[in-house]
Structures are given as structure tokens and as C-alpha cells.
């Protein structure tokens, strides 16, 4: 890790205590039925990528239900891959000088994320027969031309953005009684763990941002732009042509494009990203006129 990034100063005693007292055994607490049946949605109907558009109304009830099943498996697959990518970055940083104050909490974080990956992956494999593959990261990945503090900030900002986006879905599905109980449960448990991760992520974010403001304020607009691009990238990843293909919908790529241009979907994206955009704006990282 770059040595020019000063050690972060964090008091995480409260979050560490919560992680300890909320600890559970993921391998035993869930009740996994043999199968889920096809007569109810697996993903909240108002959260599927066709919600609010005329495309949804064009489907038969069977097609709508099939779509909720593949979208649920896709959403949980995105979780698996998102966690895989963010965990590797966190593992590289635990017990380094910069993150010494965070190491105790990061042990909880790493353990919990491994468990999240397990229950999301189990849902996908058991009921969907597969984890949808991730598209590999091809091309330069990191933000370029900025200082070390901004580079570190981007790592944790991406984690925070991913966690907040996912949490929008978890919070809704945790209490959606139309879903199979196991789908509600894994969303509920994840929502609970992630409230600690998000609180941690926001502390760390402001610490690293202060370092950027001190050392290289000229990086701020570059960061703001990068993070807005990342928000849009994240929300677009929900629209997977393979899902539409599996659900038997016509012309998946054209459908995806129509959905991404649809005003109802723009409104949905704004709702999904609202909390994160507000947080970024409060920290001086807003992009003028940004909307997904």
C-alpha cells in the first residue's frame, strides 16, 4: 500500500461490539427448502428491471414470475462477484500501517462478506442451478492521474457504493411477504450486517477524503466524475441480457437498451442511488445534473 497515505484514525469500538453480539452461524441459521416453487415471485416485483414500463405489462403472468426468478438469481450473482472483488482489496489492506485502526473491524468484515458470498451463492446454485458469470475487468481499472489518497479512497468508495446499492434491494425484499421465506431471510440478514459495513465505510470515506482535500484538492473533481460513472456502471449491471434470454424474452439486447432509456427506469435509478448521491454531495463530490 502506498506509504504516503497517513494512518486512518477510527474509533470502531461500537461497531466491533455490534459485530460480536450480532454474530451468527450462517451455515446453520437458514432453513433451505428443497425447491421454491414457481407460483410466487422470487424478487420483489417492483424491483425487477422491467418494473414501471409497458414491457412488464406485455408479459403473461408465467413470464413475469419466470423473470423474477432469473432476476433474483442475477441479483444474488452480482452480490457474489461484487463481494469477491471487494474482499480481495480489503484482504490486501488489513494489518497494514494505514489501516491499523481498522484491522479489528476488518476481520469481522472479511468474515461476514465470506459468509454473504456463501449464502447468496447457495441460493443461486440450489434454486437457479448457476451463478451468472461476471464480465471480467478488461482495460485500465483504477482511476488514473490522481494521488495515493484518492486511489485508496476509490477502493473504499466502490465498496460503499456497491453496499448501499445492494442494501436498497435488501431492505425492500427483507419485508416482502410475497417472496419465499428463504429469499426474505437472506435479504434481511444481509441488510442487518450491511448497516455496520455502511457505517464503517462512511467513516473511512470521510477520513480518506480529508487526506485528499489536504494533499491534492485538484483530485476532487476527478473523483466526483469517476464515482458518478461508477454509480451508473453499477446500476446498469442489474440489466443482464442473459436474464432476459433465460426468461424467454425477445431480443434481449434491444430490450436492455429500451429499458435503460426509459423514463420510469431513470426514476427507479434515481431512487436506488439517491442516498449515495446525497452522501457524495454532502462531501463535495456531486456531479452537476447527474442522473442515471
Amino acid at each position, binding site marked *: 500500500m502506498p506509504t504516503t497515505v497517513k494512518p486512518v484514525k477510527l474509533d470502531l469500538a461500537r461497531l466491533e461490539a455490534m459485530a460480536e453480539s450480532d454474530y451468527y452461524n450462517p451455515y446453520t441459521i437458514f432453513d433451505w427448502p428443497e425447491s421454491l416453487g414457481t407460483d410466487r415471485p422470487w424478487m420483489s416485483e417492483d424491483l425487477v428491471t422491467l418494473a414501471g414500463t409497458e414491457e412488464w405489462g406485455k408479459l403473461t403472468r408465467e413470464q413475469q414470475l419466470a423473470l423474477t426468478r432469473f432476476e433474483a438469481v442475477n441479483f444474488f450473482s452480482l452480490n457474489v462477484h461484487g463481494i469477491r472483488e471487494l474482499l480481495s482489496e480489503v484482504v490486501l489492506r488489513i494489518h497494514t500501517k494505514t489501516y491499523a485502526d481498522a484491522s479489528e473491524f476488518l476481520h469481522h468484515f472479511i468474515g461476514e462478506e465470506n459468509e454473504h458470498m456463501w449464502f447468496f451463492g447457495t441460493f443461486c446454485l440450489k434454486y437457479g442451478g448457476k451463478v451468472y*458469470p*461476471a*464480465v*471480467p*475487468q*478488461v*482495460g*485500465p*481499472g483504477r482511476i*488514473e492521474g490522481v494521488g495515493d489518497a484518492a486511489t485508496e479512497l476509490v477502493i473504499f468508495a466502490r465498496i460503499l457504493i456497491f453496499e448501499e446499492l445492494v442494501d436498497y434491494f435488501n431492505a425492500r425484499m427483507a419485508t416482502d411477504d410475497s417472496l419465499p421465506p428463504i429469499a426474505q431471510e437472506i435479504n434481511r440478514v444481509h441488510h442487518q450486517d450491511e448497516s455496520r459495513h455502511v457505517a464503517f465505510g462512511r467513516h473511512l470515506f470521510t477520513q480518506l477524503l480529508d487526506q485528499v482535500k489536504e494533499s491534492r484538492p485538484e483530485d476532487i473533481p476527478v473523483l466526483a466524475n469517476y464515482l458518478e*460513472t*461508477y454509480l451508473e*456502471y453499477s446500476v*446498469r*449491471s442489474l440489466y443482464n*441480457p*442473459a436474464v432476459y*434470454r433465460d426468461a424467454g424474452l425477445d431480443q434481449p*439486447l434491444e430490450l*436492455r437498451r429500451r429499458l435503460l432509456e426509459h423514463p420510469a427506469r431513470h426514476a427507479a435509478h434515481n431512487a436506488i442511488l439517491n442516498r449515495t448521491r446525497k452522501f457524495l454531495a454532502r462531501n463535495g463530490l456531486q456531479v452537476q445534473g447527474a442522473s442515471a
Partner: protein
Amino acid sequence: MSDDKLTKILTFIHQRNPEVGELNLDDDLIDRRAVDSLAFVEFLYLLEELSGETIDPEEIDVEDFRTLRAIDKRFLHGAAAH
């Protein structure tokens, strides 16, 4: 590849990254920052549309995406007029 398909690929690249400038068939798209990792998914879907084939994300070889000529050879059946 057909001029039409090439134009669509170049339009995508220039919309995403106006600073990249002129690109020849053998220019390295990754070194030139023509496509970065946040744009790659969309780039993949564009190639699926142009080729009419689905591309398995688990079978991706970066070298197939490195130049316009490589993309043509792998996904557009080498229809380039060169």
C-alpha cells in the same frame, strides 16, 4: 469488417472517451485507453449486437479485444476490407 460496423464501434469509443483521437486497425485499444473496465461490459454488448452472437463472459480472452483488427477477426468474421 463493414464500414458500418466499424463506424458503430468507433462512435461508441469516441462517445465514451473523446480524447482518444484517431484509431487505426492495429492500434492497441487498451493501452490507448479507448475502452476502460467500466465501459467494457457495454462494449461487449455492442459487439454481441454487431456479430449477432452471444459472447460467454467466462471465455473472454483480452487479446481478442486488443485491436480493431483482432475484434474483427474474432467476432465479425474477418470481413475487414484489408
